[in-house]
């Protein structure tokens, strides 16, 4: 069977397997260790009701939290990675992609869509940490670049939610060049005077930090997210000392001037709307879009 077929079937199986969250399951907060029923955890937007720790969530959850009625039009859903370098470490790269696709039910580490935030249409990209650590390979770069193209064509604000361990080593320099590609597209967006809001979530590191995640007109962090260029382990090894408390956390970045604000997940949607409403792109005169982006309409899974 071709590799593409294998990826597709792997994902389908996973999607069919998806069952509603059963009752009586518990989530143990990694921060305060308090158990919460998974139902309550979900209702609380995957934030610990006890200590406010923001759990790691992916594109499906963010789409359902941020888009009106959880409705959106997904872009480029079928893009999957090639294996340009025939990369083999402990296993071949395609096997790694396939395993991750099967496990996560995702094609790669980002999903892109257009949808509405309290009525305002936006183009949005959300990274999925569950796919090879949210690493940035060609698919991540390409899908983000195309979502920015859609924002440019339709004169929409762009929102990117970052959550990434950094580069995808198995794509080596192809991965590196995605930093240049996405940043170049954001330069065009900026020239078109369209707003870009970057949301940095736990963790945002490496090449993602050194490209689109830090380039927002407005940078917003979720509370206590790890955000940095070099990973804490690398820095610790380099300086040979323990890192200070709170180093590279959202509050640290706010203090040093690299994010505009820290916003809790429950307030994110309204804050985005408030900002975009003041900037007022939707109030400008907009001609009808020239080309329709290739896209599929789908509804976020309802709980």
């Amino acid at each position: 069977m071709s590799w593409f077929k294998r990826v597709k079937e792997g994902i389908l199986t996973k999607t069919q397997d998806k069952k509603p969250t059963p009752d009586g399951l518990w989530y143990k907060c990694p921060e305060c260790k308090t158990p919460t029923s998974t139902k309550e955890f979900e209702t609380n937007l995957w934030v610990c009701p006890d200590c406010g720790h923001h759990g790691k969530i992916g594109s499906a959850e963010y789409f359902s939290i941020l888009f009106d009625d959880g409705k959106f039009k997904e872009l480029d859903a079928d893009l999957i990675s090639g294996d340009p370098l025939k990369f083999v470490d402990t296993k071949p790269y395609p096997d790694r992609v396939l395993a991750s696709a099967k496990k996560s039910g995702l094609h790669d580490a980002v999903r892109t869509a257009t949808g509405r935030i309290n009525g305002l249409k936006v183009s949005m990209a959300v990274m999925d940490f569950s796919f090879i650590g949210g690493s940035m390979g060609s698919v991540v770069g390409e899908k983000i670049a195309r979502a920015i193209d859609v924002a440019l064509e339709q004169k929409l604000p762009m929102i990117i939610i970052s959550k990434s361990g950094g580069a995808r080593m198995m794509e080596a320099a192809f991965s590196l060049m995605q930093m240049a590609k996405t940043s170049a597209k954001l330069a065009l967006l900026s020239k078109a005077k369209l707003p870009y809001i970057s949301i940095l979530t736990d963790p945002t590191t490496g090449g993602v930090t050194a490209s689109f995640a830090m380039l927002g007109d407005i940078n917003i962090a979720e509370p206590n997210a790890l955000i940095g260029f070099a990973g804490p382990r690398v820095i610790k090894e380099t300086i040979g000392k323990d890192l200070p408390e709170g180093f590279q956390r959202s509050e640290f970045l706010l203090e040093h001037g690299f994010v505009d604000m820290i916003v809790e997940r429950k307030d994110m949607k309204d804050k985005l709307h408030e900002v975009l409403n003041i900037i007022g792109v939707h109030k400008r005169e907009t001609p009808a879009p020239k080309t329709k982006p290739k896209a599929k309409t789908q509804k976020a899974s309802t709980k």
Partner: protein
Amino acid sequence: MPVLLDFEKPLEELYEQLEKAQATHDKGKVDMSDTISQLEKKIQGVRKDLYKDLTGWQKVQISRHPDRPYTLDYIAGMCKSFVELHGDRNVKDDKAMVGGLASIDGQAVMIIGHQKGRNTKQRQYRNFGMANPEGYRKALRLMKMAEKFNLPVVTLIDTPGASPGLEAEERGQGEAIAKNLLEMAVLEVPIICIVIGEGASGGALGIGVGDRVAMLENTWYSVISPESCSSILWRSWDYKEKAADALKLTASDMHENGLVDLVIREPLGGAHNNPEAMYKSLKLEIKRMIKELSEMSTKRLIDQRIKKFSNMGAYADVEEEIAK
């Protein structure tokens, strides 16, 4: 004797003989010039053999050779005049990133590059060629100045990576690099980037978005060093050779994959074996590229630059692939 890399070991004995012959000759009693020229010929021959089919790892070693020319050596070797400019106007002057106004055979340019040090003291002074945010911001300041005065920008890339540290993070290493990527994409003058040694990750790309990106023959450019790649993927430092192959980080591989525009030949034995020849051929290439790019309109220049980077990537549409 020159510093020999491990794969150059077969040259050691020949160099010893050459040194002895030279010493005897210098004493003035015996004329050894025939022996000397024969030995020199032999060394060339053996070197030619050794350099015929270099592995990725061997090229990484050459790119780090202690005698290899660094940015300021290239500037001195290629530019009749050079006025170094300092500081990012905010925090400090980063010694790992140098730059300034220069003239290459009458062609005015802004030249910027990572700078390594040659001895222990210099290496520390230059932070091993690992720039801090100030370095990237200094580079951007100079690029914006070049734009203002309509000067082409030439960057020389030679870094084991952007500096990892407390201060680098406090002052926004990620933001500094990201900003350069964005600004370089739309800078309104030609940008030529040359990897002259090591091109490690975002630290290299931070001055690497250009209309022409070239690599010298024995350099490497990738998302991570082979050693770090080995330690992450194989959980050991022992697979650096394997990692170097897997990463396809050599100039020829990068060119084959369409990630750099051209490969510039080095003298036999690497740039350090004949620096003057290297400066001369690099200078010719730079002049040729500036001429080529200067003929383009600003709009076309920027369009092509963005298009080139936009086309980099390996992916496919599953549905289309299955339909095939």
